[in-house]
Structure formats: C-alpha cells, structure tokens
C-alpha cells in the first residue's frame, strides 16, 4: 500500500482556483493536504526549514513572497512545484523573453531599454503600435498600447516620474494584430492538457478583465510551442499565452501560478485533477528516491 503524499499548499488568500485544488486534494486517497500560509511562516538561515509536507505546491498571490519562500524551502531540500527558478523567470517578462529566445521559441519582437531617450528610439525603430509592460506585473495591469510618438513620450514620462523602480526598465513589445482573441494553453509536466481562446472586444484579453473563454482544440503546433515554452522556463505547471499570427504561433508570456478556474467548463478538462496527479507523481518519485 502506498502511503499518501503530503502536499503543502503554499498560499495566502484562497481564490476559486485554490479552493478547487483544496477540494481535489481532500477528495483523493493518494494525497493529504498541508496548508502553509505565507503570512505565518518565517525562515532562519541558521537551521533548515521543516514542514510536514513531502512536496510544496506554490499558490501564493504575491510574486515576491512566492519567489522567496520557494528559494528558502528549496534551500532546505524540500521539493517545490513550481521551482524557484521558474518563478524567477516567469515573474519577469524580460527574463521570460530571454529564455524563450535562448530556446528558439517564437515570440513577438521585444526591446529592452533603460532610459526615456533610448526607449523612445527603440520604439521609433520598431514602428507603431507597440505594447509597453512593467517588467513585473500581471492581470494586464499598467500595460499600454502605444500607437503614436506623442503617446510614447507621455507614457515614458509618466513611468519615469510616477512609477516605482520596476518601471525604470522599459519592456517594449511589438503589438500583434490578433483579431480579438489569443490562446491560453495549460502545460502540466510533459503534456499540454487544455487550451482556451480568450476573446474580447478590448485588446487586453485577460479573463480577469472580462474576456470570454471558449475551448481551443490543441493542434500539433499549439502543443509543440506550449511544451517548448514550458521547457524554456524550466517546466512544471504553467499557463502559456499564445498569439496566432500570419507567421505562425508566437508566445507572449508564461504564467507560473496559473489561474484556471474559467477554463475548466469550456474545455471539459478537470485541470485541478491533472495538477494534483502531477504533484502526487513528483512527490512519490521524490520519496522513492
């Protein structure tokens, strides 16, 4: 008889996604839930972190808390999903672009600049429209589509004057004409388990911002690029944002604490079950050495 794998759910607020994972773990014979609240833990560098959990599933809402907690748990030899290196890469659009490039995964053209002047020159050189994004950020917040030089100048000035230091690295991406939709695919381990189209009248198609999710059939091309993107950032449980372009599919970015609640119904795929299957499998392999 195999004993239960103790899954440490690293969390703070419990969104619908975390609730679905909790229900999934509690409903299984092969897993046991250990709640680890990121607001209650502290770490000492003098002794290693202990936990009852055999493996940690990271589901924090704050990127920096997730990243540092993962680094510290890993330092104590505790297996984490996703790995801290994956969190670090996916938490930064710049690092993600760099990894996609190094692994030859197609992506829209990207420029990085550090001053208003060099950023404006880069934008003019790329041609309008472009999209400017904070290097760290999510849910479509503070991303700006820039269609004219006047707008570029204004946004660069605002970022410089009003932004935190995160806004002092200008991440500039070519705007992709995507006809009202993009694709969000879900990779768990070696498999692309599901994908949705996110359709919106607005160019920002996050479901958190009101876009509608419908099933997207997983073509070979989509499965390949999704798995390649997941591998490029270090693998695990990942959601890939993909654009359909005339030149084929391109990866926009990779999310490491993926939200999936709006994608279960349209795809008919039990995403929390797939996630926990994978975590149990990794935990079991780790326990058996």
């Amino acid at each position, binding site marked *: 008889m195999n004993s239960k794998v103790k899954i440490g759910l690293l969390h703070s607020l419990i969104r619908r996604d975390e609730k679905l994972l909790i229900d999934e773990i509690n409903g299984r014979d092969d897993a046991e839930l250990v709640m680890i609240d990121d607001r209650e833990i502290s770490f000492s560098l003098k002794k290693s972190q202990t936990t009852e959990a055999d493996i940690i599933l990271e589901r924090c*809402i704050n*990127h920096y808390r997730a990243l540092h907690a993962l680094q510290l748990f890993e330092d104590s030899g505790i297996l984490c999903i996703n790995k801290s290196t994956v969190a670090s890469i996916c938490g930064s659009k710049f690092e993600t672009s760099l990894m996609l490039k190094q692994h030859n995964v197609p992506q829209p053209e990207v420029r990085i600049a550090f001053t208003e002047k060099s950023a404006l020159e880069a934008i003019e050189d790329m041609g309008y429209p472009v999209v400017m994004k904070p290097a760290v950020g999510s849910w479509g917040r503070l991303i700006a589509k820039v269609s004219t030089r006047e707008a570029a100048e204004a946004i660069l000035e605002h970022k410089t004057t009003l932004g935190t230091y995160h806004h002092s690295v200008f991440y500039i991406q070519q705007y992709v004409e995507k006809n009202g939709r993009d694709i969000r695919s879900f990779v768990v381990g070696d498999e692309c388990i599901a994908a949705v189209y996110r359709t919106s009248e607005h160019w920002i198609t996050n479901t958190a911002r009101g876009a509608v999710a419908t099933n997207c059939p997983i073509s070979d091309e989509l499965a390949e690029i999704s798995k390649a993107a997941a591998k490029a950032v270090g693998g695990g449980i990942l959601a890939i944002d993909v654009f359909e372009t005339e030149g084929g599919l391109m990866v926009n970015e990779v999310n490491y604490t993926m939200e999936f609640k709006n994608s279960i119904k349209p795809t008919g795929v039990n995403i929390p079950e797939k996630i926990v299957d994978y975590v149990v499998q990794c935990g079991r392999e780790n326990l058996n050495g």
Partner: protein
Amino acid sequence: MALNAQCPVCDAEISLPDDTVKDELFECEECGSELVVASVNPFEIEEAPEIEEDWGE
C-alpha cells in the same frame, strides 16, 4: 448547515456553504464587493485587501 453573516459594505445577508475555508475570497451577490472570510468559527467576513503591485499569476 450554511454559514451566515452580513455584507460589511451593503448589509445584505450572506450565506456560504459549510465547506468554506478561512481566507476564501468571494463576491457579495448584492453589491459586487470583493470579500474575504476572516474566520470560520465564529463566521466573520471583511472586505478583501486592495490588489498589490506584485499580485498576479
């Protein structure tokens, strides 16, 4: 048995299922406010915290 309380924003009656957990986020059906379960026993709810700069997926 359901858990009952009042919305801290609009006073509407709120009823959540008994498998509700601490820190669970939900929306008031009446006024749409983002709320969070502060404690299950006793059952207490409050307004959810504001989004922070590094929140996301």
